[in-house]
């Protein structure tokens, strides 16, 4: 369906192509929202303890009255203490990663930019790891000051610092060199990874177990406390993202062109960098480093509905959430009762897509 739209657009049907694209965009957002609801229900129902679809509404909405039925009590326990927070966190992480990918690609005018690839996630992870390992020694005041927010705020700061460094290194006189961006990003990722490794090397076993989570990504350990910690980040993103839509569209043409269109480029860049760091930092804080969501999802949306951010951002968020939840369902069922790190699954899906993008660019299209 959507391929025909792209082809029709390429063939040039002046009056129709544009409104077609807008309609496709609206349909895509609506369809992605519907799909996300289905996937969220599946994520609640599927697991080592299956909860039938008929039992799901009863377990979700019934009062505590029927405590006599042990199966129902168990279902409620599994649902409320494990699956519901995990599903909410998974949806947030998928949405945040997809949106941060879309924003970085707009900011750097490069469809290959992804927070996982260019070191932003690693920077956030380093800060998170440092907070965990040094939380009861060097950073004890930080920990006591921020409580449950210490981890996401640290990760945010780490992501922010890395993104700002990337902008400073890759942007020369308004033009961002794609090669410099990717290579500098690899260097940052390596540096941050080395930092995390050093801390892991100096840690005791329990801490070490926690730390492996940051490098491979996982939704294990989802809890209501983590959900609560994410709320302010989600709210800030929901408020900030609409303000970035016009700027991102303009920046795709170039920084000078964006300025000609009345966009305060410097302020727009600060906003986009801050939003990216918020999204990446908070998702790394709860789920570790998960790559490729930010590349695969925006790429797919652009193929279907074009690069306009009024559609790209919401559609990416919804599809990213679904994709991550689907990957998580796989991660916790394939080798149940053990779990696969979700980051490994995402890399299996994402790396080939990335390669495809690189090859397509190489052939000059």
């Amino acid at each position, binding site marked *: 369906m959507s391929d025909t739209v792209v082809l029709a657009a390429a063939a040039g049907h002046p009056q129709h*192509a*544009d409104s077609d694209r807008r309609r496709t965009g609206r349909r895509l957002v609506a369809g992605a929202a519907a799909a996300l609801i289905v996937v969220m229900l599946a994520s609640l129902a599927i697991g080592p303890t299956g909860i039938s679809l008929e039992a799901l509404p009863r377990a979700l909405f019934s009062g505590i009255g029927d405590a006599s039925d042990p199966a129902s009590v168990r279902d409620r326990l599994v649902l409320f203490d494990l699956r519901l927070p995990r599903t909410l966190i998974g949806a947030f992480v998928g949405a945040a990663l997809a949106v941060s990918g879309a924003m970085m690609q707009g900011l750097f005018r490069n*469809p290959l930019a992804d927070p996982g690839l260019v070191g932003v996630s690693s920077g956030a992870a380093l800060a998170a790891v440092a907070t965990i390992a040094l939380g009861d020694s060097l950073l004890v005041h930080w920990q006591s000051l921020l409580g449950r927010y210490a981890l996401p705020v640290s990760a945010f700061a780490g992501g922010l610092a890395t993104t700002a460094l990337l902008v400073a290194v890759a942007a020369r006189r308004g033009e961002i060199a794609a090669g410099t961006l990717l290579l500098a990003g690899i260097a940052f990722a390596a540096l941050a990874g080395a930092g995390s490794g050093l801390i892991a090397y100096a840690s005791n076993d329990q801490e070490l177990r926690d730390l492996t989570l940051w490098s491979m990504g996982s939704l294990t350990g989802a809890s209501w406390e983590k959900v609560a910690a994410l709320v302010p980040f989600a709210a800030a993103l929901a408020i900030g993202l609409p303000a970035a839509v016009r700027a991102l569209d303009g920046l795709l*043409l170039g920084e000078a*062109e964006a*300025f000609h269109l009345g966009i305060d480029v410097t302020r727009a860049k600060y906003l986009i960098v801050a939003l990216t760091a918020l999204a990446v930092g908070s998702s790394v804080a709860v789920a570790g480093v998960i790559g490729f969501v930010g590349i695969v999802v925006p790429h797919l949306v652009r193929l279907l509905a074009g*690069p306009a951010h009024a559609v790209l951002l919401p559609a990416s968020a919804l599809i990213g959430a679904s994709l991550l939840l689907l990957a998580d369902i796989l991660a916790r069922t394939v080798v149940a009762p053990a779990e696969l790190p979700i980051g490994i699954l995402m890399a299996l899906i994402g790396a080939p897509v990335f390669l495809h993008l690189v090859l397509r660019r190489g052939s000059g299209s």
Partner: protein
Amino acid sequence: MTPAPRRTDTGLAASALAVAVTGRHLIADVTLRVAPGEIVVVAGPNGAGKSTLLRCLSGELRPSSGSVTLDGVPVSSQSAAALALRRAVVPQASVLHFPFTVAEVVALAATVPGLSTPDARQRAAITRAMARADVGHLAGRLYPTLSGGERQRVHLARALCQLALAPHAEGTRALLLDEPTASLDISHQLMILEAAREEARTGIAVLAILHDLNLAATFADRIALMACGRLLAIARPAAILDDARLSGAFACTVCANRPPPGGEPYVLPQACAAGPRTLA
């Protein structure tokens, strides 16, 4: 041309403009004014500072000294959004890795905050701007698949749309074009400059960088000749285009108003064919 009594600071003006990067002057001591309804063409050899001047006039580049004013108000004191309501820029065709359609790129001009908003009026302005830049038939094409000349015309359409929607009562509006004819065939070169001429007729101050001196002679009210970062002269085309001045500025032998001595043919496009264009 009878000069109407008007304030002397109307229009887009640069005074004693200088831009220095790491101690080297890209432009120095440039003073000029583009009056409302006037077309000023900036000509000169590569590296003369033409684009730097244009970037200062657009507000994109802050000069090291001197000032740029629009109707007497310094451009540097105005926000990007306020400036976008008063002036549009046709850049040299830019690279775009993302598959916007032509119509989407042009429609970005209608998103400037403060432009007149009724949807129907915006759509009409977009359609008309695309027709004037002869990109109407490309509306649904993806920008990255266009040729260089087509891209340039898309940016012209975007600028025309931005000016058409800008509030007319606020003061002088300006159109800046950076080598708008660089990758165009001769018919489209004329078309772009005739569009600029029409804009000027509605009172817009137009400044264009052109390399083709024949086009400059045809369309400019005044030509600003630049070399080595300085403004050598600014005057009517007949006064600028003389052998000695051009030969000096461009460091090569230039003959104005004479057929080639060897009798080779020479070509000078002069006017756009009337009527709708039928281009594939």
